[in-house]
Structure formats: structure tokens, C-alpha cells
């Protein structure tokens, strides 16, 4: 099976802090990591390769430093990696990102399954998966928590819904996004890490993938960010005084006043 995994390098938002005085993000020393949900995608791809044989290729769109995320994917066992990088891609929203990624995938050409993580922890939109599937003209199923079987060109899988799950059958090739319940990602292997040392990451620019400049990056993005601001400080904050017993009494009274009790 030829499997493509979509990967994104993101700042570790768990480490991002707000400077309370200026209300701006403190990015110093915030490490860049593989989007946590993508780790589950990579793991599932590797397991499918172990079961069905074949090849796993990781693809990412990003600036040159995104190659680090691809190297980490190789240390986990991914066979090949492709970096889609070009100044023209910068500032892309989900539509323009999906466009570039689908162009890159069209160049890779051979695949039965594309796996992506549920969402990226910086953008949180969960849109690139479905939009890319649409641009490739392949079926899309979201929130897969278990792949039951793959038979020829059909896949049977469990899709997480709000109050349970569906068992869905889809034709292949298809694009799926996966949730954490699907597996436990592995740690890198020494052989994988050693492979990274001599690895040259394949990088394709707009011309290589036949991308129309007007559809890439900021230019190609239907949405634009017009403003960034800190979240509103939560209103009424009460500092309670007195012994712990007094404080608890005060809180309980307030909850009573507000009809919670």
C-alpha cells in the first residue's frame, strides 16, 4: 500500500505563554514540534505498512525549517518525505494550503490512502483534510478511531461521532483524519535516527508542483486576518479574603445568589 501522511510543524502551544503586561505571545524558546495529532496519523500509516507492506511518504507545506518535522517522521520509520516550500506559499489560509498540498500529492501520484491528524493545534480549524480531499476528488472521512480492514479498494473504519461512533465503508483512494483513540504513537528508533543523519529532504516549489501562483499563499487565500488581539480579560474577578472556611462560605453564597444551588 502506498500511504501519504500529511504533517504540520507547529509551535508547541502548550509552551506558549502570554506576557501579562503587554498581552503578547512569548515565543522565545518555544519549541517547534510535529502537530501532536499528526503523530497518530504517522503511527497508523506505519502500522498499515507493517500489515500490508508498501511505502509511507510524509508531506508538509512550510518554510525550510519544516524539514525538521519531516526528519522526525523519518526517525519514526517513515520511508520518504516531501517538503512543499516556496515564498509564494507563505500566509496561506486553509484553502490555499489545501491547494498546494493537493498539487504536491498529484505529483506524488501513487497512493491508496492519505492520513492526516484531526486538527493542527495552532490553527485548530480541521479544514485542510476535507478541503484537500475535495480538491483531489477523493472521498473523505473524518475522526477515524479504528481502521477495521482494508480489502482491495475498500476500507472499513469506525468514525467518532458526538455521541458514539459510525462504522463507515469507503472506497479507496480516500483521505481520512484520525483521532487520538486510534493508537499509541511509537518512539523513534535508533536506525531511524541514523537514517536522518544522511537524509536529504526533497523540497518542491510552486513550479515543481505546477501550482498557480494566484492560488497560493496569501494571494490565493479567500480569508484574511484583519486583527489579532489578546482574549478579553475575564470580567468581574473577586479576590476572596478571610480563612479558608470563610472563603468557601463566600463562594457558596455567591453561587446561591446566582441560582446555581
Amino acid at each position: 500500500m502506498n500511504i501519504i501522511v500529511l504533517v504540520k510543524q507547529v509551535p508547541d502551544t502548550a509552551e506558549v505563554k502570554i506576557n501579562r503586561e503587554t498581552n503578547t505571545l512569548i515565543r522565545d524558546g518555544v519549541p517547534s514540534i510535529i502537530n501532536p495529532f499528526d503523530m497518530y496519523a504517522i503511527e497508523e500509516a506505519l502500522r498499515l505498512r507493517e500489515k500490508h507492506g508498501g511505502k509511507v511518504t510524509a508531506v508538509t507545506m512550510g518554510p525550510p525549517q519544516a524539514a525538521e518535522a519531516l526528519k522526525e517522521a523519518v526517525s519514526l520509520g517513515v520511508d520518504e518525505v516531501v517538503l512543499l516550500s516556496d515564498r509564494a506559499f507563505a500566509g496561506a489560509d486553509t484553502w490555499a494550503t489545501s491547494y498546494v498540498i493537493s498539487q504536491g500529492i498529484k505529483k506524488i501520484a501513487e497512493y491508496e490512502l492519505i492520513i492526516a491528524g484531526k486538527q493542527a493545534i495552532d490553527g485548530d480549524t480541521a479544514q485542510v483534510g476535507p478541503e484537500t480531499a475535495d480538491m483531489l476528488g477523493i472521498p473523505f472521512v473524518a475522526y477515524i478511531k479504528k481502521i477495521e480492514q482494508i480489502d482491495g479498494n475498500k476500507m472499513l473504519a469506525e468514525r467518532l461521532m458526538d455521541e458514539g461512533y459510525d462504522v463507515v465503508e469507503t472506497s479507496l483512494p480516500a483521505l481520512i483524519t484520525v483521532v487520538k483513540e486510534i493508537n499509541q504513537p511509537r518512539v523513534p528508533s535508533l536506525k531511524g535516527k541514523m537514517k536522518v543523519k544522511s537524509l536529504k529532504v526533497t523540497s518542491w516549489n510552486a513550479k515543481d508542483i505546477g501550482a498557480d501562483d494566484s492560488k497560493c499563499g496569501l494571494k490565493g487565500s479567500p480569508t484574511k486576518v484583519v486583527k489579532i488581539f489578546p482574549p478579553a480579560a475575564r470580567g468581574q474577578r473577586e479576590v476572596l479574603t478571610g480563612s479558608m472556611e470563610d472563603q468557601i462560605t463566600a463562594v457558596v453564597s455567591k453561587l446561591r445568589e446566582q441560582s446555581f444551588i
Partner: protein
Amino acid sequence: MDYLLTEEQIMIRDLARQIAVEKIVPIRAELDEQNKFPTDIMQALAQADLFGIFIPEEYGGLGKQSLELCIAVEELSKACVGVSTSYAANALGTYPILLHGSDAQKKKYLPHIATGKKLVAFGLTEANAGSDASGVQTTAKLDGSEYVLNGTKQWITNGGEAELYTIIAITDKAKGPRGASAFIVEKGTPGFTFGKKENKMGIRASSTTELIFNNCRIPKENIIAKEGMGFIIAMKTLDSSRTGVGAQGVGVAQGAIDEAIRFARQRIQFGHPITSFQAIQHMLADMQTQTEAARALVYSVARFIDSGAKDVSRASAMAKLFATDVAMKVTTDAVQVMGGSGYMKEYPVEKMMRDAKILQIYEGTNQIQRNVVALDMIKDASRAK
């Protein structure tokens, strides 16, 4: 302190550390309480290629040596000595094949060991043969194209979990120390069963059982080297693995220090964190200094062994006895630093103290190690006229 590790040694260290933190720490208390073998962790170690560190590349390993193995063992021991024992005992069981096995045997077994597909155990100890290895009574009698094994091994690490067992048995009683031989026995061979799992003070994640041989027939090709080589193979095996035990000592000691200082920083008594009291500061300083000395000794001896030196017994004995004595003292002190909390199972140091004890006992008690060192010193002195 920087030990000037190579890029690859750092890679091994960081990967072992990642597994320790992500996979071992969260479940170590449970493994300890339930006497449970860490199957999932063994799988993670296998998949990370850590079982192949010291196996030559031609057999699917990474072709590294003692120092690399020590680095991995140290990191795993910081998290749990029960797990690192299961991992290190694998090396112990492999050395007979690695150091003395035929090409055919290496080709047959080493690749599976490198991938972690088959775990290994080393079977020397018996009820009457602990420090006195010559007391081995398990016999191996040649009968046509097979050897027949009879006897019982005691307290064997990875017993029941390993697929491969390297066993020392007597082939010719009359020849005394030259009458023992080493064999490879596979799990499932008829006549080879396991006794119950021991209920231990510490390293409870590690599986310790009896190995029972009752007219167990193995192909005669399963003898390692030739008849009479048994004790030499055993001694060389133990020489090679002593630094690993030393590394376990260094690891558990460091793990205990890290826990103790973390606790002490936030424990407030008399209006101050207890780290502000000299008594605690001095204890911590001594703990770290001793551990650092142990680490420096273990690494130096590992490098010495890896350089191909012939006569490594004294050095490896020193590394083992020093680092493990340090580990016992440091883990005990860690409990003391943490006071009542250190005594509670809620915190990991009481387990570390229980785990550390075995390091002074197995793979040659520290008393035997002292014998080795002294005898070697005396031999040297008698030569130097």
C-alpha cells in the same frame, strides 16, 4: 558533567530517556505492585532498536559496545530498575553466544535477539551454586546426537518470558572446573519447564523463576564452543556485563537524587523549603558526588573494555561494586531526605531503595567482587619484583 559522548551515544541516551519518561515512569508503580512483566515496554525498546545496540551490524544490530549499552541501561534505570534488569539481563544471556558462539549459532540467534523478537536469559545460579559457581549440579549428558539436561536453575532473570536460555551445566564431573559446558536451550523444548515466579523485595517488574530440566533433550549443535568451556564462558560473560550492573547503580542513584531534590524544594518546614537547611544540602552534595564518581568509573571501565583490553576483571569488578554500593547508600539517603513522604508508596524513592539492594547481590555479590579485586592486586604485586 559532560562525558564527551559521541553523537550516536547522545542519540542512544536521548532515546532511552524518552522511553523512560514516556513509557516507564507512568506505569512503574503498577508494575512493582502487581509483580508484572513490562511486555509493552519491551516492545517499545525492541521497536526503538535498543536491543541491538551491542550486536554486530552483520547480524542486524548497531555494532556498538559496552559504553553504549551502559548509557541505555543508566537511563532506563533512572525510571525503573525492574525494567532495566529485564533489558540488561538480555545482554547477559546473549554474551555467551556473542563471545564464544559459532558462526552458525550467531547467524541463527543474534538477528532475532537484535530485533527484540526473542528475549534471552542466562542460567548459571542454582540452589547450591551462588557465589560458589563450581557447585553447579545441573548435568548435560551426550546421548547420540543430543545432550540430555537434568537439574534446576534458581532465580533466573527473564525466566518464563525469554525464548532463549544460555545454560551452564556439568558435562564431566571428574574434570572439576573444566567439566562444565555452555548450552543454548529454547523455550518449549520438551522437558524444560519453569518454576513459580519469585516474590521479591524489589525489581518486581523483572520475572525471576526456576528453570527445571527433566530429561530435556537438545541438539548437540546447541553446545557453545566445546565441552569444558562452561566456566570460562561464564566468567567472560560476567566480566562483560558487570559495567551494565554498575550503570544500573548509577541510574537508580541519579533517579533517586532527582526525586529527592524535587521534593525538597517544595517541602516547607519552619517557614523554609528544606533545601535551605545545611543538613539536607550536605546530604544532597554527598549523594551527587558519589554518584558522579560512580558514573565516571563505570564509563571509564566501559571505554577500557571497549578498547579491546584483555584483562578487565579487576576494573569491571571495581565498577560494579562501587557503583552499586553507592546506589544503596544514595537511595536510602533519598528516602531520608524526603522523610515520611519518602517512606510512602505514593513517592517513587522507597521502591528505588528496595530495587537498589539486589544490585549489591546479583551478578557476583560485592563480597566476591572484592575478592576479585584483591586477588588481582596481589597477583600484580607478586609479579612486580
